[in-house]
């Protein structure tokens, strides 16, 4: 069980969190202007790297806030956490 440092509450057990997949996938400005391919990319296609991954978590059973994290998917080590709206920090994996 990972120990996840919620940027609002501090380190908490993974069981308190909800996973949200890739971060920084913005809802398209104007979906109707997208081709079907572009829309499908938004709806279904995600990065799935082996290595550092910017992803979303929500502290569901705690402060209920969403935040972003960079986690190494090979080791599950959390390299950084940051609040929604903040840029992704540089990390060294």
């Amino acid at each position: 069980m990972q120990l996840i440092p919620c940027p609002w509450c501090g380190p908490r057990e993974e069981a308190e969190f909800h996973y949200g997949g890739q971060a920084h996938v913005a809802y398209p400005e104007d979906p109707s202007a997208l081709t079907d391919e572009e829309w499908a990319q938004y709806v279904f296609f995600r990065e799935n790297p082996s290595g550092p991954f910017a992803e979303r978590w929500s502290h569901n059973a705690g402060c209920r806030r969403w935040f972003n994290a960079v986690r190494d998917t090979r080791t599950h080590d959390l390299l950084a956490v940051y609040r929604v709206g903040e840029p992704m920090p540089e990390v060294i994996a």
Partner: protein
Amino acid sequence: MTSPPGAHLPEHPDFLWDNPEPKASYDVVIVGGGGHGLATAYYLAKVHGITNVAVLEKGWLAGGNMARNTTIIRSNYLWDESSGIYEHSLKLWEGLEEDLGYPILFDQRGVLNLAHSLQDVRDSVRRVNANRLNGIDAEWVDPAGVKEICPIVNTSPDVRYPVLGATYQPRAGIAKHDYVAWGYARAAHAMGVDLIQNCEVTGLETSQGRITAVETSRGRIAAGKVALCAAGHSSVLAKMVGLRLPLASHPLQALVSELLEPVHPTVVMSNAVHVYVSQAHKGELVMGAGIDSYNGYGQRGSFHIIEQQMSAALELFPVFARAHLLRTWAGIVDVSPDASPIVGLTPVGGLYLNCGWGTGGFKATPGVGDCFAHTIAHDKPHPFNEPFTLERFTTGALVDEHGAAAVAH
């Protein structure tokens, strides 16, 4: 004493395969030496006569999900598209031992999928009816029927989520994963396929929109065609040619108990209570649960998943209380948005994709091996994998098997 419990397990053959150096070039290079890669190689050679084939495996052969899965085999999926390929696979399983000349311990002991709510019941009956019309053996059994098939299931109405019935597929069952993989590997090798281990593909080379070679940890290997069978690593490989896939790779854990006298004659799965159990040939209880929520390539999950799984198991099987957890492990499953696979061509000429089997691709091993080999040989999907294109995510023609496959196998 009667004969000891382990006396009757079949031995492996005296010879399996050689360990050749990779050649400079092959007609077909298969990336990933799991069940799917090995089966594909086998059918390429056997059905299509294509034997100048290499299977490249970054670790030890069939050491990925193939070595880690809970070996549930069934074809009772909901949609016609799924029925097609899974039932094709099940039929191949039924002749596989003979086909491969290998004792794969395919055991059609049946699978029960339990229903715990009225909606579960409706969904289950719906699936049973669809299965039957698709020519798949399936029945709805009431709690007494469940008890008859598997006497140790707690069918008392006084549990947190009582068993309201189950779907039953008698032809479903289990097999021994290593034996299956090795059976395919040995047979493929015997037909001239090179099995190359400790050979990680690190790059895919293309020229004018066509695949030409793979870069590997053991050097460059030219290839007429390249077939990806990398399961959890599919996204990483596809990315090498700039292809994004609608996949997330998650840890999926499983566990076994020590060896126990037979108590569990079938396979029981419960989506609602989140556990599935069978008792393997040697006598160990084999169990799995839901995926870990996060993306992960670490082949390890979190322990609370195991704890939840144990509490679910004891809800259904109180007699397991003093069984012991002996070993846990995890694989990396490539989960797709509709819980169905992606098998077919790609925008890159000569590059073929087989992935997205997520938590349930072991049962498909013969079926997909056959269909994928056909796809590669003809540069055209086999009818059974035609619905499972990458394009379906653009058109919206998904094959949503969450009801039949979510945490199931």
